[in-house]
């Protein structure tokens, strides 16, 4: 049932587009056109094009059909919108019609206003579309606001949000009365054999109740039985929809078939829905199986599970919190490993999007500013038009039109303009959103759900209505004061009331201030980005390829087997033509994985007694430092640093500086914990600090031991190469196959990608804020130019008189520029103050630059002033060259 519903919706055309064409199509053809479009939509899907393409085709058809449909509606003698006449809307329609006719005579005005508004509204709509999908739309689960993440927390040990140990999770599940469901999961990777190439598949190991906790039904099979896993493994697996389509062609007979994972048989028991979304991508789901020795007292310290819980109906988060406090107290007194640890509850939604809220709010703020500037420009245009039409208003008033009638006409006209602007904006946002999403860092959750749907369109339309209203009010206010003033004047005078000018100067000031704030924000981000870009990561990423691989535990159980495999692999890889040097490490910089172990310095009781020391731990091969370009003092590892050789270690600069500030650490001994427990090692070298956790993070204490003395089952091979990715990938794959037929090669990527990926979110926000800031500056400049030009055109007479009375070009120039520059300077002052208040919110996004960096503030202020001067100089120059004779004659 569920399945057929899904299939049915998959073949439906986009609803919004369908409603649009249904609204505008002439009634005689409406039914046929809709059915024709639906039929062809189905044909396109049947031809094998995907849903996205088919929907795009539909939209394109609808948009291209709009002009001809609207023309036919407006044809003479045909009732317009007959379905509306019953609603008592005829007077409104008459107003709309009147406004449309008046606007049609001013295409230049309409185009300028619509495009300016569309730019502002379009940017807002696109960003709102992203924010809506990521921040606002509820998670795709049953009653998602009842879902929580559960963490262990121990601020004293510097751990505010820690994963949960298995035994503690079982305690929570058993005794927490506030939750209707509690489930735990962790990531895993399986080696999949028997289907094509051997390969790694991302999987999630979860307690069986996780799907009922989320409220997600299987589309095939029955899922995990309630008692699956727990103690001992059941060998069953649930497939993601994509995995099922790829390997079983969507065949429901897949249920009951077996998969070979890590050389064991797993029976398929369920398939997840196509639209199932989970924070961690996984193709396979297996039940969390554990043995009694995993829940011993000692294992309570091993915190590695992500825990989800669903609040019971009627139970508040506060109740759950206090219950968890009691539970933590109880566990702390019963188990030494729980002592000092409490629980932390966070809503699942906050946990997922918390990091990106600030970024999206920043972008929304930026587009809001752009929209404000666009509105300011449009207000100026609307005011100019109102002045032009003063005569028309006077005549109509003389003929008996009431004030409210005139106001209503203006309102309808402006609303119409705003709505047309919104339509253009929605269309533009519809096309912009795909490239925007492609540009966005992939770490942002739920990006694939971003779409310009009904909600986003409704947002844009309501925004445009508000804009139309504001335009009317502002224009009306200035118009009213103009007309009061005009009564005192000889008829035909070509000056504008003081309030009109005052409003215009306010607009200049406002635009300058807003664009300044945006530019300062962008300037700060640019500098922060450049500084990060210049940070020395401690290695030279250019020309280095990386390939991760992991050895199945079953076949490489012994250390000797692993050591000899790595030795052979590295030796053979080094022989490849394209490879200059090669190495291997357990943890690559900026790849997100770290290991952290305790150590102590021998002969220094003080250091070990005071605090538990821990360092980032790496096991590396001899060629690693050379290949990565990491500077080294002392000696690197050599091939004799193996299990027969003396235990050695290399430390980093930070460690040397901290513990041997005046002496050379080479030759000293430290005890390092590793796979086999603590072992005393001699320091043979010191390497440069590497920024493992990212460019912005301070270097940490690090120790490197020889891979041959501590062979882990997973490594990343690094190779400095003279050739491209594809060739090396193929050669490496051949190498691997020659060593082990069934070993999958993990991800192969240039080291530079890792650095670029790390910088991607920063690049994204810089790019967007930068673009918005430049658009804002450009619009503010055009706005100022428009305002000053307008004022000059209204002052031709006056300037003519001034010149006739002896004013020089310089005087006129100074007068006009002065008129513009005063509000611009006020705008700069205001903008600087606003920026200083707002950039505080940027602090956490900036690197090594103060949010009120004086240099940036000064430079940007000067830039904006210069731009303002250029924008008003052109009309001022024109004013200065007015010929007094001609001006007075006109």
């Amino acid at each position, binding site marked *: 049932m569920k399945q057929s519903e899904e299939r049915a919706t998959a073949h439906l055309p986009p609803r919004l587009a369908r409603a649009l*064409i249904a609204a505008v199509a*002439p009634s005689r053809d409406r039914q046929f*056109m809709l*059915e*024709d479009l639906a039929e062809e939509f189905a044909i396109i899907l049947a031809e094998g094009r995907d849903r996205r393409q088919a929907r795009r085709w539909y939209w394109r058809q609808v948009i*291209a059909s709009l002009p001809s449909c609207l023309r036919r509606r407006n044809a003479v003698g045909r009732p317009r919108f007959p379905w509306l006449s019953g609603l008592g809307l005829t007077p409104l329609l008459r107003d709309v019609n009147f406004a449309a006719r008046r606007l049609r005579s001013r295409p230049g005005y309409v185009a300028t206003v619509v495009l300016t508004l569309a730019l502002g509204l379009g940017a807002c709509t696109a960003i709102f579309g992203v924010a809506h999908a990521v921040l606002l739309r509820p998670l795709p689960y049953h009653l998602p606001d009842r879902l929580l993440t559960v963490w262990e927390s121990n601020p004293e040990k510097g751990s505010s949000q820690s994963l949960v140990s298995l035994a503690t999770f079982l305690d929570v599940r058993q005794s927490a009365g506030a939750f209707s469901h509690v489930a735990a999961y962790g990531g895993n990777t399986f080696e999949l054999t028997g289907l094509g190439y051997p390969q790694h598949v991302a999987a999630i190991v979860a307690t069986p109740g996780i799907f009922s906790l989320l409220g997600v039904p299987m589309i095939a099979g029955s899922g995990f039985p309630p008692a699956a896993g727990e103690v001992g493994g059941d060998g069953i697996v649930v497939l993601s929809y994509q995995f099922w389509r790829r390997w079983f062609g969507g065949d429901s007979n897949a249920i009951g078939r077996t998969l070979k994972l890590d050389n064991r048989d797993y029976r398929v028991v369920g398939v997840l829905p196509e639209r199932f979304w989970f924070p961690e991508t996984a193709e396979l789901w297996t039940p969390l199986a554990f043995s009694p020795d995993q829940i011993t007292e000692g294992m309570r310290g091993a915190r590695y599970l992500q825990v989800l819980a669903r609040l019971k109906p009627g139970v508040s988060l506060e109740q759950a919190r206090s219950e968890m406090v009691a539970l933590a107290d109880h566990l702390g007194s019963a188990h030494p490993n729980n002592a000092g640890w409490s629980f932390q509850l966070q809503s699942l939604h906050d946990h997922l999007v918390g990091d990106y809220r600030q970024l999206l709010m920043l972008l929304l703020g930026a587009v809001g500013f752009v929209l404000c500037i666009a509105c300011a420009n449009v207000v100026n245009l609307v005011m100019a038009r109102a002045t032009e039409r003063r005569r028309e208003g006077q005549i109509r008033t003389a003929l008996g039109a009431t004030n409210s009638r005139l106001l209503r006409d203006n309102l309808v006209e402006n609303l119409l303009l705003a709505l047309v602007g919104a339509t253009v904006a929605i269309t533009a946002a519809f096309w912009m959103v795909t490239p925007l999403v492609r540009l966005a860092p992939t770490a942002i959750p739920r990006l694939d759900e971003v779409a310009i749907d009904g909600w986003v369109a409704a947002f844009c339309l309501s925004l445009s209505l508000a804009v139309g209203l504001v335009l009317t009010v502002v224009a009306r206010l200035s118009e009213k004061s103009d007309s009061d003033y005009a009564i005192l004047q000889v008829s035909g005078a070509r000056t504008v009331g003081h309030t009109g000018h005052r409003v215009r100067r306010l607009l200049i000031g406002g635009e300058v201030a807003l664009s300044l704030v945006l530019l300062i924000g962008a300037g700060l981000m640019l500098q922060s980005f450049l500084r990060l870009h210049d940070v020395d990561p401690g290695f030279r990423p250019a020309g280095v390829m990386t390939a991760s691989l992991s050895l199945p535990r079953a076949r490489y159980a012994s250390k000797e087997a692993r050591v000899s495999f790595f030795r052979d692999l590295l030796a053979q890889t080094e022989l490849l033509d394209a490879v200059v040097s090669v190495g291997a490490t357990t943890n690559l910089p900026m790849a997100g994985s770290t290991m952290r172990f305790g150590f102590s310095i021998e002969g220094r009781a003080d250091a070990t007694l005071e605090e538990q020391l821990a360092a980032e731990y790496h096991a590396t091969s001899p060629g690693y430092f050379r290949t990565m370009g990491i500077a080294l003092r002392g000696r690197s590892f050599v091939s004799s640093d193996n299990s027969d050789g003396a235990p050695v270690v290399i430390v980093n600069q930070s460690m040397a500086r901290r513990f041997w500030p005046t002496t050379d650490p080479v030759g000293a001994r430290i005890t390092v914990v590793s796979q086999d427990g603590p072992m005393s090692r001699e320091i043979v070298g010191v390497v440069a600090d590497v920024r493992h956790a990212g460019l912005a993070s301070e270097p940490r204490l690090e120790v490197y031991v020889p891979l041959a003395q501590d062979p882990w089952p997973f490594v990343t091979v690094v190779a400095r190469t003279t050739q491209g990715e594809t060739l090396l990938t193929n050669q490496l794959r051949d190498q691997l196959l020659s060593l082990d037929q069934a070993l999958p090669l993990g991800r192969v990527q240039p080291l530079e990608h890792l650095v670029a990926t790390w910088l991607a979110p920063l690049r994204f926000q810089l790019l967007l804020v930068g673009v918005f800031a430049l658009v804002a500056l450009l619009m503010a400049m055009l706005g100022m130019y428009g305002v000053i030009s307008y004022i000059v055109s209204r002052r031709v007479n006056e300037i003519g008189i001034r010149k006739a009375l002896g004013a020089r070009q310089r005087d006129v120039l100074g007068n006009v520029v002065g008129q513009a520059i005063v509000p611009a300077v006020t705008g700069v002052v205001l903008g600087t103050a606003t920026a200083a208040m707002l950039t505080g919110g940027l602090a956490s996004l900036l690197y090594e630059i103060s949010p009120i960096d004086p240099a940036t503030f000064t430079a940007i202020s000067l830039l904006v002033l210069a731009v303002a001067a250029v924008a008003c100089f052109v009309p001022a120059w024109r004013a200065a060259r007015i010929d007094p004779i001609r001006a007075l004659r006109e």
Partner: protein
Amino acid sequence: MPKGDYLGEFEQLVLLALLRLKDRAYGVTVRREIQGRTDRNVAIGAVYASLERLERKGYVLATVSQPEPVPGGRAKKYFRITRTGADALKHAREMMRRMTDGLAVDAELDAI
């Protein structure tokens, strides 16, 4: 032929599509026929607008079929050319022929 009844380019394309499609001409087939042959993107709205105009001039006759006897089957609006429509199309082609008669059009155009 009264003045002002000349066929526009798109109207000619639509009539020619009807001619090709015989009794299978309705919205989808007409649109696909023109798009497939001319390789230009044709909006369904434009097709219907043109057909309505042709119908008003009496060049085209529209008939609505019975719904197809399958679940969810639909009624279709089929179009065919009338005698007058055929004459108008002939006339348009004839005028084009006369204007190009004795002229090596392609060669002349290329020489420009």
